[in-house]
Every structure is written in structure tokens, then in C-alpha cells.
């Protein structure tokens, strides 16, 4: 995240949000991919709820970070509502890399605080910068959003399963774009994940069945 708050500020202001709206997003949402998704969907003319739904589903991964962090950090219940706001990719990565609870807590707090301050300051600078330069498209700023998504996506494409999900999602996302209301195609594209998992599960099931029926035949010979 770090300095890319600048890219978010510019993109958001370039998408038609005010400086104030842009900064409130970074202050209250504080999870980069969701913020980029939201301003992109709003710029494309999506209604506020479908736009928010896309951002929300991208944020769901933070719940799974929280699960692992709650065991690791063992925070008092009263502190959890405050710590929750900082449960993001980077703080999770840093905390989970520590070997003791003490250093995990320090890592979480330092990373959380540093990124929160940086992300919000750079968002403000980016939004002000976008207002100053006017036509952000002439500067290629509209390419920043998709580049951020691609940079987040690339390290996730490790196996055929991930690539199949990504490929199917691209086809669904682009294919349905002209025919469904703005913001909806990306939600349909999210179904690529359960769809590929389902096919994968069936294949594995079939493979197991074949393996069990094959063995007796092998013994016959």
C-alpha cells in the first residue's frame, strides 16, 4: 500500500469524487483494493449498492487475516474493535512473519499506524494533485487503477486453478459488461471462484472413483 495512496487519491479525484469524499474513503475504508474497486465502479456509472458490493467482496479476505491474527495477537476484547480497522494485507503479512506474540503485536501496531498515516496523507496529496492538473486522462491516470489490480493479482496466479478462475472471470466480466447494469458483471464474475472449485471438486471425486474401481481389475490380472 504505502505510497500507492497517491495513486488512489489521483484515481478517485479523476473518477469524479471530491477531495473530501476521497479522503473519507481512505480514512474509513482503509483497504486499498476495495477503494479502487469502488471509485472505478462509481466512475463507470454503477449504482451505489452494486459498487459497494464489489468493494465489499474484495474486503472479505480481511476476515480471514483477522482469524489468524486473533489467535496470534490474542488481543483483549475491548481492543479488538480498534485493531480491526488495521487488519489488511500488509499488517497481516508483517505480524504473521514474527516468531513471538510480543513482536507480532509490535509489528502489527507499527505497520498499522505507519500505513494508516501514510495512506491517508498520500491520498490527500493525490486528490489535490488531480484537481490541480485537471484532465487526469491526458496523464494516463485512468491506467493506475487496473495496474494496481494487476499488481495485486499477479502473485496470486500460482496454480492452474487460480489461472482458470482469473480467465473465466475476465470472460464473464467483459462479456456481460454491455448487457448487464454497471457494477453487476463484476459480481457475476466473482462466481468464477465457486464454479472452478466445483468443477475441480467433481474431477477429484471422479478420479477417486476411478482409482477405487481400477484396483480390483488390476488384482484380477
Amino acid at each position, binding site marked *: 500500500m504505502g505510497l500507492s495512496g497517491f495513486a488512489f487519491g489521483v484515481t478517485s479525484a479523476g473518477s469524479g469524487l471530491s477531495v473530501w469524499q476521497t479522503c473519507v474513503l481512505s480514512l474509513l475504508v482503509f483497504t486499498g483494493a476495495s477503494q479502487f474497486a469502488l471509485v472505478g465502479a462509481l466512475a463507470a456509472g454503477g449504482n451505489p449498492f452494486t*459498487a459497494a458490493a464489489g468493494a*465489499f467482496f474484495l474486503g472479505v479476505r480481511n476476515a*480471514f*487475516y483477522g482469524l489468524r491474527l486473533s489467535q496470534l495477537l490474542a488481543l483483549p476484547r475491548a481492543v479488538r474493535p480498534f485493531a480491526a480497522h488495521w487488519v489488511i494485507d500488509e499488517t497481516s503479512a508483517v505480524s504473521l512473519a514474527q516468531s513471538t506474540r510480543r513482536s507480532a503485536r509490535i509489528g502489527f501496531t507499527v505497520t498499522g499506524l505507519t500505513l494508516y498515516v501514510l495512506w491517508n496523507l498520500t491520498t490527500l496529496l493525490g486528490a489535490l494533485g488531480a484537481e490541480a492538473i485537471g484532465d487526469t486522462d491526458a496523464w494516463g*491516470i*485512468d491506467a493506475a487503477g487496473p495496474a494496481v489490480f494487476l*499488481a495485486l493479482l499477479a502473485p496470486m496466479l500460482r496454480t492452474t486453478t487460480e489461472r482458470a478462475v482469473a480467465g473465466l*472471470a475476465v470472460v464473464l466480466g467483459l462479456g456481460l459488461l454491455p448487457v448487464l447494469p454497471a457494477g453487476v458483471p463484476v459480481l457475476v464474475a466473482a462466481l468464477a471462484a465457486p464454479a472452478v*472449485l466445483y468443477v475441480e471438486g467433481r474431477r477429484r471425486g471422479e478420479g477417486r472413483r476411478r482409482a477405487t474401481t481400477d484396483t480390483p481389475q488390476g488384482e484380477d490380472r
Partner: protein
Amino acid sequence: MNIWIAIGVTAVGCYAVKLIGLLVPAGALERPAVKRLAALLPVALLAALTAQQTFAEGQTLLLDAKAAGLGAAAVALVLRAPFLVVVAAAVVVTAGVRALTG
């Protein structure tokens, strides 16, 4: 007004999922199928968003300078460039192609 509604819903939703992770008892979401789906959901969303924001304007599909910009970002990723260089490559190449093609 619509924008404020979207900001409000997103802020509440994104905060809620962060908090749920910290509050639910360990093991509640630890089923392999759930974890697998949670890992694949961002893959689908990010792929669809990348494609849409590169190859579409509103509800129309199109091929413009952004495609070249994204190509540059992909090359930067293959070369293991830092995050900011990847984004900068996309922006600079997109702006360059636009300036050249007017």
C-alpha cells in the same frame, strides 16, 4: 448523494468483515472449502476488474491507450519491478500513447 451512500455502505461493510475475523471463535471459518473459496474470490474479482477497467469505458468495450499501459505494467511485473514502478509504467505509457496518437 449516491457517492456518499456508496462510501457509507463500503465503510461499514469493509469494517464489519475485518471485525468479524477478530471476533469469531477460532475454527469457525477454518473449513478447507471456505478457506479455498476465500482465497479464490479476490482472484476472480481482481481479474474481472483489471479487464473491465482496461478494455471498457462505461458499458462499451474498447481498445485504447490503456491496453498499452497495462501491457507495460505486465512487463514490469514479469521483471519483478516494485509496486510503484508497475503503476508508474502503466500511467506513463498510457499518457505517452495518448500524446502520440492525439
